[in-house]
């Protein structure tokens, strides 16, 4: 087994009592990666030398100056820039790109004393639900290597599930933290839009993107969100709302909590096992003193179409910066500047990214703007209003994270629309901008299922309180895949 079966609390206890040193934890991460990553394929770049140097330095810091995450290793999704550590967004167009500054979240990790051990694979530019759209490798699900880990933060979830690292950061535009967390049986939080600074997150859809923590338990997740949250002068869309002490909310008490269950989340397209696991979870929560009532979010079925138009439109604009001139891949043998742009982008981007850039360009062009882009923005308003209305009378909304457990590698890759349908339960949450977590709530054929708990704007506290109470009453977050037994 590994040191990483321990929670952050137990790891700190071990450091304090001298059972192991910070460098032992850093080394453990690299040893696990060496042993397991041939199968899991989660890491794109490793930060071994600097991480070990940092560990030695940090060992000198007296215990009373250390916070709860001090000295603990973390993996970072490869669309978050890390100074001097290659950052590619899993795209050929950024191969070899060396960031010249750190993302705000990376600075905050360092301030908390965390050690970044490497960069995690993803779907190219975070566009995808399986990690099969990476230009470099396909990450596998640690519970069953024939299956995908989900996406786009697939490797962020898989590396934590495999015990390569106890913590990771992902990003979520339409479900990219929650869906892989569900598929890999770990805890993943998409915070309220604006809760975490996006400075240094390579932009996909700027009105939807949000960075969030992936961990093996709810307590560690709350700790990590607290460390990365807060307003930032470098991101004018980050919100100036105080960051609460999230772990203080974890008391297991949810008496009187008002839970709404949207009938649209348990209807057509949702698998039987996912449905059943959610109904069982609701019974557990009722047993703890919560009330459960059915509600309707009538515009849910329109979210997927609205999302693909809006996110692709924003992406087509954001990704125009990749032109081969200032950084990244540059096509050779071109005659003029126009050809340089076109060839660099044609050779540098993968098919899914090209599809979305073209869909976005089309949606924004004269003649289609009103019918597609503006229409989708209006539908976004209707979806947001659905959520506002339900939250007038309820504290949280609960449903499955994904309609099914992880599918097989290769199963959906040739059919974009079927692939997109994996995200029908997570996408509306990004359109409404509210926070939501996925926590493990069951299994189907040995593959994990996720429970999604959605909260009001800036009320991550109630989500964590609910998730923690559920976690304490069940044992799903204590289970680990067989791959952990590797010597």
């Amino acid at each position: 087994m590994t040191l990483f079966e321990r929670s952050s609390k137990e790891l700190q206890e071990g450091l304090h009592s001298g059972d192991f040193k910070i460098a032992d934890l850093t080394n453990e991460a690299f040893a696990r990666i060496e042993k397991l990553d041939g199968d899991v394929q989660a890491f794109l770049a490793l930060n071994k030398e600097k991480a070990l140097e940092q560990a030695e330095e940090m060992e000198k810091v007296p215990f009373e100056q250390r916070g709860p995450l001090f000295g603990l290793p973390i993996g970072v999704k490869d669309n978050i820039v890390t100074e001097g550590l290659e950052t590619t967004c899993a795209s050929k167009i950024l191969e070899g790109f060396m960031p010249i500054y750190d993302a705000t979240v990376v600075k905050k990790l360092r301030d908390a004393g965390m050690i970044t051990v490497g960069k995690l694979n993803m779907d190219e530019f975070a566009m995808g639900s399986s990690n099969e759209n990476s230009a470099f490798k396909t990450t596998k699900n640690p519970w069953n290597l024939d299956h995908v880990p989900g996406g786009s933060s697939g490797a962020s979830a898989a590396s934590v599930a495999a015990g390569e690292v106890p913590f990771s950061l992902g990003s979520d535009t339409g479900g990219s933290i929650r869906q892989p967390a569900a598929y890999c049986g770990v805890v993943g939080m998409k915070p309220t839009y604006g809760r975490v600074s996006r400075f240094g997150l390579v932009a996909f859809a700027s009105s939807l993107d949000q960075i969030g923590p992936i961990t093996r338990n709810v307590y560690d997740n709350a700790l990590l969100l607290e460390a990365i949250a807060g307003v930032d002068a470098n991101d004018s869309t980050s919100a100036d709302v105080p960051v609460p002490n999230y772990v203080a909310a974890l008391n297991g008490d949810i008496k009187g909590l008002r839970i709404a269950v949207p009938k649209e989340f348990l209807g057509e397209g949702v698998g039987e096992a996912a449905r059943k696991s959610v109904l069982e979870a609701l019974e557990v929560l009722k047993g703890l003193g919560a009330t459960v009532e059915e509600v309707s979010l009538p515009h849910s079925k329109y979210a997927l179409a609205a999302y693909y138009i809006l996110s692709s439109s924003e992406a087509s604009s954001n990704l125009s910066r990749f032109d081969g001139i200032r950084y990244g891949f540059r096509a050779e043998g071109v005659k003029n500047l126009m050809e340089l742009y076109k060839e660099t982008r044609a050779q540098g981007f993968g098919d899914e990214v090209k599809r979305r850039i073209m869909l976005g360009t089309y949606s924004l062009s004269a003649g289609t703007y009103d019918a597609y882009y503006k229409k989708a923005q209006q539908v976004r308003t209707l979806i947001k209003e659905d959520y506002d209305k339900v939250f007038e009378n309820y504290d949280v909304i609960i449903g499955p994270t994904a309609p099914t457990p992880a599918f097989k590698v290769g199963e959906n890759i040739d059919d974009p629309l079927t692939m997109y349908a994996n995200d029908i339960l997570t996408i509306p949450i990004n359109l409404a901008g509210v926070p939501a977590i996925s926590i493990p709530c069951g299994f189907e054929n040995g593959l994990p299922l996720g429970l999604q708990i959605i909260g009001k704007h800036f009320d991550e506290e109630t989500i964590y309180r609910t998730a923690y109470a559920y976690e304490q009453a069940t044992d799903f977050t204590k289970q680990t895949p067989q791959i952990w037994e590797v010597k």
Partner: protein
Amino acid sequence: MAKLTKEEVKHVAHLARLAITDEEAEKFAEQLGKITDFAEQLNELDTTNVKPTSHVLPIVNVMREDVAQKGLDREVMMLNVKEQEAGQVKVPPILED
């Protein structure tokens, strides 16, 4: 509205500065057609007088004092530039002879 022709895809690819072969244009026309077909379902909703949402938070402008701050050094900025000369980025000819 929904079906995209090969010519339309080529035009969109040009606007997006993507080189595209005939074969690719055909493949993308079919795939994008399916997606735009799917998007047609939004027309089932009456959105007359519904305000569009571009951003969920009520943030309008974020102001700060107009004080000069040190930026990044030019040397650092040029670190990832493939072709450069005397601190300038080099590109192929913009106009042809």
